[in-house]
């Protein structure tokens, strides 16, 4: 797929639905290697869907497709009602202002300090007054508890701090959809828990629809069994036997195909041998 290709778009098709993201029979191959094979799933508004699979199963590719950074070979992808497979790059740029993404290795701009990284989108749009940008940056950084890092460069931050700055950058415009690519990968358990708490906070306080790619089953199960308590400012385990439903679902990929799409209860009781092995 060409890095510089742009689609020859016709009038984009819109689909009114209750879903933030819909994948319909999406196929993608790199050279002769089929990465995704007729993938279909949907992400309802306000829900977080954790995507699992072994390395190379196409998890991160799904996020890049959802953002329009890659084009599928066939199939349709609807994001916030727009068929992004039909959009041109400049139309996608507009849609991307409603989506935030946290990359696997944070992908902070290493020549910019934390303030300019977090404010990047607002500075580029050039529509927000400087004072408001400053307050938005402070608000986003305080959400991730890193207000004191404003003037630091990414190279001066730890891995966990970089990941949190990346979250702040993703949420500064209060996006309707958030995409997390292995946000806890390579981090220690305490930092991972902090990141998971931030994701739960974003889900429960701001009701943001999210796709979460992760290798760590325990993170997703923590998210499925906890909700954010505004009073204490921390996530709390749901009481045993609680009927409270957490807007959380799971999707498992194998050999480029979806082999499971359901909630935590269905996942825990799945009889599929591969899933049982994966969960163990």
């Amino acid at each position: 797929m060409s890095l510089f290709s742009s689609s020859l778009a016709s009038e984009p098709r819109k689909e009114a639905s209750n879903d933030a993201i819909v994948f319909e029979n999406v196929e993608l191959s790199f050279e002769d290697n089929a990465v995704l094979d007729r993938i279909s799933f949907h992400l309802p508004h306000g829900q977080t869907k954790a995507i699992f699979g072994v390395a190379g199963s196409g998890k991160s590719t799904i996020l890049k497709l959802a953002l329009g950074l890659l084009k599928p070979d066939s199939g349709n992808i609807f994001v916030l009602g727009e068929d992004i497979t039909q959009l041109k790059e400049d139309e996608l740029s507009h849609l991307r202002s409603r989506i935030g993404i946290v990359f696997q290795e944070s992908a902070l701009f290493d020549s910019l300090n934390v303030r300019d990284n977090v404010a990047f989108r607002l500075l580029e749009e050039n529509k927000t007054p400087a004072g408001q940008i400053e307050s938005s940056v402070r608000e986003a950084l305080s959400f991730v508890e890193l207000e004191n890092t404003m003037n630091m460069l990414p190279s001066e931050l730890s891995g966990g701090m970089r990941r949190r700055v990346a979250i702040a950058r993703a949420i500064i415009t209060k996006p309707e959809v958030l995409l997390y690519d292995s946000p806890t990968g390579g981090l220690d358990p305490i930092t991972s828990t902090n990141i998971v708490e931030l994701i739960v906070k974003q889900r429960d306080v701001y009701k943001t629809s999210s796709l979460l790619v992760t290798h760590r089953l325990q993170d997703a199960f923590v998210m499925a069994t906890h909700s954010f308590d505004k009073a204490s400012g921390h996530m709390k385990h749901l009481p045993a036997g609680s009927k409270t439903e957490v807007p959380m679902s799971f999707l498992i990929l194998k050999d480029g195909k979806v082999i499971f799409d359901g909630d935590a209860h269905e996942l825990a009781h799945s009889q599929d041998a591969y899933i049982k092995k994966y969960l163990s």
Partner: protein
Amino acid sequence: MAAEDFLSGVELISPAEFAKQKIKSMQDYILLSAQALANLFRRPLYIADILQQADSIGVGSLSITVLAGTFTGAVLAMNSASTLERFGSLSLIAQLVSVGMVRQLGPVITGLMVAGRNASGMASELGSMVVTEQIDAMRALGTDPLKKLVTPRIVSTTVMLFFLTILSDLFGLLGGSAVATLLLGLDFRQYWTDAWQILAFADVFTGLIQPVFYGFVIASVGCYYGMSTTGGTQGVGRSTTQAVVTSSVLILAVDAFLTRALTLLLGFR
């Protein structure tokens, strides 16, 4: 070492596949260049980025340009001296250095120097951004990387190479004058009068149109290899090398075609 061991890391491809890859690379390069140029007519223009790159590319290349120009002029004078002396025409040295530097050596040597310094810098900087997903992040944040990163580099390199070439020409003449006066005992004033008077419009035009093309070649090639980087840090190294080699060879190739075209256009002596 067994042949299979030697070939274990080598990927063999058919000539047809190789040709297809090269054609695709050329297509991507042309597309990138065209889009970068088209961005000049679309907002935003990123003036601050253009100025920052102009400083980095132009001011940053001053020292190598001055040194390369000075020594090229000096060497040209020294090498020509023995030949001219044989024909009793040592006094023509100023004319020879002047026309040689302004019409050909100044632009080409400056272009090669700037290519070595900046095409590699652009390829490694953009390549690192690609492999660390910073380019994807930029697109995800609604910014066109071609507009923000490639177009300012092309504009800055093209403009700054023009001025660097003028400086290189001047310092080449200075180097030549140092050799002419200090080693060959020629008159300093006479040298500069001869050097100035020999230059015709065609010489100056030829010498100053070249850096515009070379600047574009250096920046577009550097950015192309940077933006096409694959394969992690090893890929960044590969892109850097390819950017320097390709831009240097392209400068010499463009020089050949440009010289021929300008000869036909301006009707050189």
